[in-house]
């Protein structure tokens, strides 16, 4: 008899507990219909209360960027909550600065929707959508950087060069949970049914390991975006652009876009820093752009070229090369603007050099 009794008792216990939880969830966790008012009436959503703000918004098609997928471990999903929703939670504190707390910035993945809310979110987030894509091409650019081209089929994506997109990484191998990671879009805005990204393998990285070792052509995946505020300025200033590694992506998109739109009167200096020749990629592509666009100058620099590289281009740290060009080649009488994309260390160092040379308008896309 025992072999029937034991499972029966366990099942009974579990069902009673499950019943209690679901009844309570219905009763206690039911906050009724709630109105979310975004940007003083620009968008008004009628939703069911009880869920986290991040998931409530995404179920309504508004995607606040989030790298960790709502676990409260990345701090990306910040948004301004104008209604009083109680004090800042200990789980939010590590990700908010004192000024942000003063401005009522909260982590949308930690706040529960319990009553009518007034929010402020950057308008362009309304543009962000979830796209279902199919991996069309995976190209090796260097030994550790791959270009991934995703076709989004009939859908079309509207974005400005410099924006990034969130790649949804499904569970794979030993990784049991889905995560999201942000990558700059390297394709042109005019290619509306494609999204390309340059992804560098980070040893132990969840997303990059998946892309490099597991992703196959034809695989289905999800993308959420576009997000970000990195873009070229509207001025006629000389653009001094500096990138390293996969920081190439936004510039690749930007220069092709400018070339296509005929904005070739503008002077562009594009510095790309790498260690050795095997870290360089897309050289021919930028040499081609140089041919079509007389004011475009591409300066790849190697910090530690090997003898077999036969490198006759610029040598030295990208900061030194940049400093040399700013002093000798890039006309200081014209207004100059800096655009940076790369590791926080590189951005910091180049920022100093630009400041030192009197360049004050600096835009950057920091990835860490």
């Amino acid at each position, binding site marked *: 008899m*025992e072999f029937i*009794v*034991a499972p029966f*008792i*366990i099942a009974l*216990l*579990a069902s009673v*507990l*499950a019943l*209690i*939880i679901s009844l*309570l*969830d219905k009763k*206690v*966790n039911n906050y009724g219909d709630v109105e979310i008012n975004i940007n003083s009436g620009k968008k008004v959503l009628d939703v069911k209360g009880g869920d986290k703000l991040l998931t409530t918004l995404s179920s309504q098609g508004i995607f606040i960027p989030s790298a960790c997928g709502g676990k409260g471990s990345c701090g990306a999903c910040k948004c301004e909550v104008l209604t009083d929703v*109680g*004090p800042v*939670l*200990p*789980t939010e504190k590590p990700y908010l600065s004192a000024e942000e707390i003063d401005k009522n910035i909260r982590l949308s993945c930690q706040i*529960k929707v319990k009553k009518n809310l007034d929010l402020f979110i950057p308008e362009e987030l309304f543009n962000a959508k979830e796209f279902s894509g199919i991996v069309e091409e995976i190209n090796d650019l260097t030994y550790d950087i791959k270009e991934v081209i995703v076709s989004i089929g009939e859908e079309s994506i509207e974005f400005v060069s410099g924006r990034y997109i969130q790649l949804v990484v499904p569970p794979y191998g030993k990784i049991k949970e889905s995560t999201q990671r942000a990558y700059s879009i390297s394709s042109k805005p005019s290619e509306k049914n494609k999204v390309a990204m340059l992804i560098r393998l980070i040893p132990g990285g969840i997303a990059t390991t998946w892309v490099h070792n597991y992703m196959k052509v034809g695989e289905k995946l999800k993308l959420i975006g576009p997000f970000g505020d990195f873009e070229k300025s509207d001025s006629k200033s000389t653009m001094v652009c500096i990138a390293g590694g996969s920081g190439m992506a936004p510039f690749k998109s930007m220069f092709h876009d400018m070339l296509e739109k005929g904005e070739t009167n503008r002077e562009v200096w594009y510095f790309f820093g790498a260690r050795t020749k095997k870290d360089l990629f897309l050289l021919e592509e930028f040499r081609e752009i140089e041919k079509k666009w007389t004011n475009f100058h591409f300066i790849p620099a190697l910090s530690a070229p090997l003898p077999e590289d036969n490198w006759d281009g610029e040598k030295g740290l990208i900061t030194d090369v940049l400093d040399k060009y700013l002093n000798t080649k890039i006309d200081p009488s014209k207004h100059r603007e800096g655009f940076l994309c790369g590791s926080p260390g590189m951005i910091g160092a180049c920022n100093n050099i630009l400041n030192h040379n009197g360049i004050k308008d600096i835009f950057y896309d920091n990835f860490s």
Partner: protein
Amino acid sequence: MAPDINPLVLLFASIFTSNILLANFLGMCSFISISKDMDSANGLGMSVTAVLTITTAINWVVYKFILIPFDLLYLRFIVFIIIIAATVQVLEMVIDRFSPALYLALGIFLPLITVNCAILGVALFMEIRGYSFIQSLVFAFGSGLGWWLAIVSLAAIQKKVLKAPVPEGLKGAGITLITIGFMAMAFIGFSGMLVVQ
């Protein structure tokens, strides 16, 4: 038969001489990771005490009236764990709804506690030692207080340690474990004065 121990003695014993954390080393992970900040340590201690008392009461009833009559003692681990997980879930929902202030202080720690081994440990001790309902309740409440006391003391000591010249290699978890060792010695110094079983 329940052992013949005065509940009051059991309460003090479980707080001091046989502290669940420092004498039995249960509930270590959250003890080490959440003890850096006094407010969080306090909140976590409070929620451990609450969850311990409530789940032990429910576990005792289930143990006495379901597991023993049906001779299902070998299933106690699974049953206790299911009950703890469900109780924590229910508590979190109720507190979130009815007391935002309490939720802020303790609710956010509740999910952490589901996997706190001190909770399961107390349920199993109660069963091994054959405590009566009142004894179990007092033992659970005392163990919770003891855990709370230990984590708050550790948080206080950590504050001092932060300013002390700790050797590079010992910073972080290393010095914390050494501190816990000293604390354990201090608590165990009183063992034998009070008996728990």
